[in-house]
């Protein structure tokens, strides 16, 4: 047995045998939720240890007004909406981009926002609007795109932004959430921002953060380490901080150049989180001098529940498990989603249903 697999088996023993006071940790990032299900980590935990899925799926927290605006744009003449695959099936107030496409709307799915440059050059008379959703990880990609749009004087590309940032929503959860004792911090956000991003939150709310990667071993390690940090805070009053379990990619300061470039084009703004409401300074918008690249992001403060019984908001806040919602798996399925958490493959409800996860 190699050293690492020996350690892993020790960690698994601890996680299965833990019988102290309950500990709840939120995995903020949707890819972590997916990975935890995929590796079967949630099933390794004792009844006293809880992993709660958080609001870190950009698609799930994008309000219906934004989707509706994208659909409007895609139906306009000489306009094409360009998007990641994630967003295509998210329901707006009446329909999704996929349904609009079926009715003849112009919607293109791409791997990278940079693909829009190629499209714009191929069809100079067509306007291309990128559905710019995402967190700190994706913001630099949009900033690089804007840099090239400016440099190459491309005038037929715009963004419809719904960019969000992590610290305000985590702070909001600490103030309003339901007993979250620690956080699994999103590793790819931290790759850009640096792990220091979470230090003020750890200090202010006395909760440990474990910056986690996405491989099975490194994720398990972060889960274990973060549970242990909560335990040690409770037992020995060791003040919680931020621990980096993803050192191959994450450093304390992150990518300085990427952060500067994002600040060149974007400034902080209040943002509307689907089902949660407005959280101050939790978003980013284009700076006034680049307003010409904005496809009307500012007017999108509408958020409608498709089904009043939907509890996506409670799920996003960690107050309810997907299974607590009366619609879960019955009226609300991935084929006919009532709320955004069921749409995205990273959505908590989708994950819990697909993997039969109950806790």
């Amino acid at each position, binding site marked *: 047995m190699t050293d690492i697999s020996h350690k892993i088996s020790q960690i698994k023993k601890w996680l299965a045998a833990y019988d102290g006071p309950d500990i709840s940790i939120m995995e903020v990032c949707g890819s972590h939720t997916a990975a935890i299900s995929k590796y079967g980590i949630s099933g390794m935990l004792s009844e006293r240890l809880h992993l709660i899925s958080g609001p870190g799926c950009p698609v799930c927290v994008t309000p219906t007004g934004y989707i509706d605006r994208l659909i409007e744009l895609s139906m306009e003449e000489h306009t094409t909406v360009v998007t990641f695959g*994630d967003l295509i099936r998210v329901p707006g107030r009446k329909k999704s981009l996929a349904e609009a496409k079926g009715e003849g709307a112009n919607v293109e799915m791409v791997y990278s926002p940079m693909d829009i440059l190629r499209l714009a050059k191929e069809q100079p008379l067509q306007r291309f609007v990128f559905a710019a959703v995402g967190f700190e990880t994706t913001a630099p990609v949009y900033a690089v795109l804007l840099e090239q749009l400016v440099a190459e004087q491309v005038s037929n590309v715009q963004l419809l932004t719904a960019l969000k940032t992590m610290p305000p929503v985590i702070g909001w959860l600490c103030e309003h959430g339901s007993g979250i004792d620690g956080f699994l911090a999103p590793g790819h956000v931290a790759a850009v921002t640096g792990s220091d991003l979470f230090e003020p939150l750890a200090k202010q709310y006395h909760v440990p953060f474990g910056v986690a990667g996405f491989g099975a071993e490194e994720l398990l390690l972060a889960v274990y380490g973060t549970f242990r940090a909560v335990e040690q805070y409770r037992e020995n009053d060791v003040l919680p901080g931020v621990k980096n379990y993803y050192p191959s990619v994450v450093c304390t300061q992150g990518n300085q150049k990427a952060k500067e470039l994002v600040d060149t084009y974007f400034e902080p703004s209040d943002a509307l989180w689907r089902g949660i409401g407005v959280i101050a300074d939790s978003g980013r918008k284009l700076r006034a001098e680049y307003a010409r690249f904005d496809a009307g992001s500012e007017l999108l403060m509408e958020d409608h529940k498709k089904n009043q019984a939907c509890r996506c908001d409670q799920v996003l806040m960690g107050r309810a498990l997907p299974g607590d919602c009366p619609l879960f798996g019955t009226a609300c399925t991935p084929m006919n989603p009532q709320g955004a958490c069921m749409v995205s493959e990273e959505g908590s409800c989708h994950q819990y249903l697909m993997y039969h996860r109950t806790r």
Partner: protein
Amino acid sequence: MKQEKKITMAHGSGGRATSDLIREIFAREFTNPVLDAMEDAAVVPGSGKIAFTTDSFVVEPLEFPGGDIGRLSVCGTVNDLLMRGAVPKYLTCGFVLQEGLDLELLQRIVASLAATAREAGVAVVAGDTKVVEGNGGLIINTAGVGFVPENVCISAANCQVGDVILVSGHLGDHHAAILSRRMGIYNTIESDCAPLGEMVGALLEAGIRVHCLRDITRGGLGTVLKELAEASQVTMAIEEEFLPIDAQVRDFCGLMGLDPLYMGNEGKLVAFVAPEDADRACEILSGCVYGKHAAVIGTVTDEEPGSAYVNTAIGGKRVLDVLFGEGLPRIC
């Protein structure tokens, strides 16, 4: 004879252009005594237990690395027949041609369809062509007839507790190849699109006690296992570490946020065989042209009827359900 370079509505008129098209492209490639008679219906010999199936094929792009819509439309139907233990014999082909379809492209696709039919040992005995408005696309429907030997009983409801589960090779190749082209990612992934007659024939000839066969198509292995667990009211338990997945496909899935367990193939099968025959079955599959990477991946248990799960490499347990949604690439 002077022919247009593209399909026009005239090719569907039933007149001269139609008969030219049929003669020049379809009849020439598919030639056999039954079809060449050009009767209203094919009359063919056969008796006993008949297996009969149909499928329609739509794919973008029409030609892709490792295959094309022509090869696909033979494999899809022939493999469905084989999965019931039938020996495929006859095929019908319906072509819905969109206006603007490039004639050379059609020629290549029809030639590929004919070659695949020969490879699979089936004759195209009836066909039809229609032209519709559109922008150069092509839809093919095939129906297939095969004969099931008297002693063969292979069915989705026939997986037995204790059976060993095998797959005939790398998972997800077809879906990954198609999606790579659509998303503009360069790689050398090829569709695994292939007829599975050699494998099924070899297993049955060797007297392997095969209880169930299923080709892994849309929805991937995960969907197949869940469906069969329900049909047979058993539990499918597979091991992540044993799953044959090509490194390139694995990383492509990583880039796109996709899961190889839910990526479709077009030339792979999953087989449920009696435990005593498992090693021999794996050897037989591995010796076939399209079965080089065959592997034993798990067993059938009676833990929880109708369920399927994976023992993960790290020692967790992951429940499998059918694929929800469409397996679209995701980034954020």
